[in-house]
């Protein structure tokens, strides 16, 4: 029983770690978007407002990808282990 619980906890932790790999993408993506926006504003400074608005919206969308990973991680760390352990206890008695 203890081994089974340890395996469940371990697998949840590994899964959470793997899910957080998705958190790397938005950082890189937002960085690149802002870099391109800097170039665009450098070329046409009068478009600063429009570029900032569009970029803010783009960043918010890019951010969501990381948020999915964050939510999956939190669920795997704090919600799923209890659920699986309860199922295990109910099954084995």
């Amino acid at each position, binding site marked *: 029983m203890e081994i089974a619980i340890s395996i469940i906890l371990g697998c949840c932790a590994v899964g959470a770690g793997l899910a957080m790999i998705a*958190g790397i993408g*938005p*950082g*890189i993506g*937002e*960085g*690149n*978007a*802002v*870099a391109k*926006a*800097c*170039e665009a*504003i450098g070329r046409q400074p009068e478009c*600063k*407002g429009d*570029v*900032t*608005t569009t*970029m*803010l*919206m783009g*960043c*918010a*969308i890019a*951010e*969501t990808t*990381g*948020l999915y990973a*964050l*939510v999956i*991680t*939190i*669920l795997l*760390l*704090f*919600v799923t282990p209890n659920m699986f352990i309860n199922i295990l206890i109910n099954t084995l008695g």
Partner: protein
Amino acid sequence: MIKVDATVKNETRYIAYFCLILSVLMQSVFIFLQKWTYAVLLGNLLSIAVAILNFFVMGITVQKAVTLEVNDAKKLMRSSQNLRKAGMFVAVVIGVVAPFFNTIAVIVPLFFPRIAVSFRPLIKDKKEVIDK
């Protein structure tokens, strides 16, 4: 003290209004399903506060980043994103672990800004048509 750009203020205001509307909708769904408790309301409040604050801080970072050199802007955005995510992680963990917050009510409103952004072109187009 950083002077907040008008664009950032406007967009944050738009996101805040939209989050409030969607929160009211979510609360009504909970009431309709007869699962409403104070934990739902508290979870919702915590979560929309985190979501709006996250968007506002992102806006301020973008505002600062566009004044920098390309490589510095990239670095600033990445570090800001990591910090914001860490802050959000802490807030959501508190929301999930603490018994006086409903887990679903904490998690769902985090995606409200994304929904607000999806509706943005529709609202903008309508405004332009009305202005014309």
